[in-house]
């Protein structure tokens, strides 16, 4: 009985590896593994509602901890407040411990899939793009997540900022081949 389970597990792992190897059309593995879809399971659309629920809680934290505040971001970049450093720092510590636990105990998803991590490769975009994003972050007081929450919290004009961010992403996609990476 037990050996049968192990065989099943190994099969699942192999299948998953094969999936990861084949999914290269996305170009995400090297440049942009962030939005690489690790799950091979197909679910009806309403399964996605659980991500909306997580996002909802996240949005509430964003507003209540004033993370979406332009003023808090200005304080951060002027070293006038510890708040944002505390938020990001403690988030990383909790994330780090969680990832370690998941790796150590080989914890699976609620659907029984193994959780795998794809390493990010270095490219110059992380420096050039990072600097450009940093400039924009200090102007708008928002990274992409807070943009959505700022709009939700009544700063409707930020819709323009979001549309411009979508345009920026589009232009990047358009001229990507000509940029140093």
């Amino acid at each position, binding site marked *: 009985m037990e050996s049968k389970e192990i065989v099943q597990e190994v099969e699942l792992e192999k299948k998953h590896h094969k999936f990861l190897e084949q999914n290269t059309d996305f170009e995400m593995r090297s440049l*942009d*593994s*962030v*939005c*690489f879809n690790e*799950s091979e399971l197909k679910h009806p659309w309403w*399964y*996605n509602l*659980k*991500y909306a*629920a997580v996002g*909802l*809680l*996240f*949005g509430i*934290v964003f507003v*209540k*901890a*004033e993370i979406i505040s*332009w*003023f808090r971001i*200005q*304080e951060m*970049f*002027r070293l006038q407040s510890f708040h944002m450093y505390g938020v*990001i720092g*403690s*988030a990383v510590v909790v*994330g780090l411990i969680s*990832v370690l636990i998941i790796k150590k105990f080989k914890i699976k*998803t609620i659907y029984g899939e193994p*959780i795998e991590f794809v390493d*990010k490769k*270095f490219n110059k975009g*992380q420096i050039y793009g990072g*600097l*450009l*994003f*940093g*400039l924009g972050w*200090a*102007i708008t007081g928002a*990274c*992409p*997540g807070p943009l959505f*929450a700022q*709009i*939700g*919290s*009544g700063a409707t*004009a*930020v819709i*323009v*900022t*979001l549309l411009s*961010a*979508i345009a*920026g*992403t589009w232009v*990047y996609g358009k001229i990507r081949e000509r940029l140093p990476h």
Partner: protein
Amino acid sequence: MSFIEFIKQPWPWYVAGPLIGLIVPTLLLIGNKTFGISSSLRHICAACIPANIPFFKYDWKKEAWNLFFVAGIAVGGFLAFWLLQNPEPMQVNPKLAAELSQYGIDDYSKLVPIQLFNWESLFSVKGLLLMVGGGFLVGFGTRYAGGCTSGHAIMGLSNLQVPSLVATISFMVGGFIMANLLLPFLLNL
């Protein structure tokens, strides 16, 4: 003090930070998803205006979870603002308040300075640069860097990725340059 009054106060970093950190394992456990928000902008491009650009030619529907996630963030922002809003104006560092008053910014009633970010200011050079220019840099820069604060600084660093550390340092350097050297010029326009 009632419970509602209690949670209406601004939450300290040691409550918010760990809650955000917990999003990392939550997304992994409920569906093998890596935390990242800026990709949603790419999926919107792929869904609405792919224009035959290879970078946007992929099955964005497979990434629909990310769009549900950001829609949830907007609704969460809405709920927190309308139900749990702190009635007091924001408390900021007096040094920042003194600096901003030079540019005529003195309204701390909202989390975003409504004197800068409003529909009317779109018709001024300053407003255009801040809202349209700033947004463009956020969208272009995050995709060029392959992630934003969530994807690189939180998810990437949680997984000990050196490229994410490089990206995070670059974000901070860009932010320091803008806030301290360039933004004073922009706000004076």
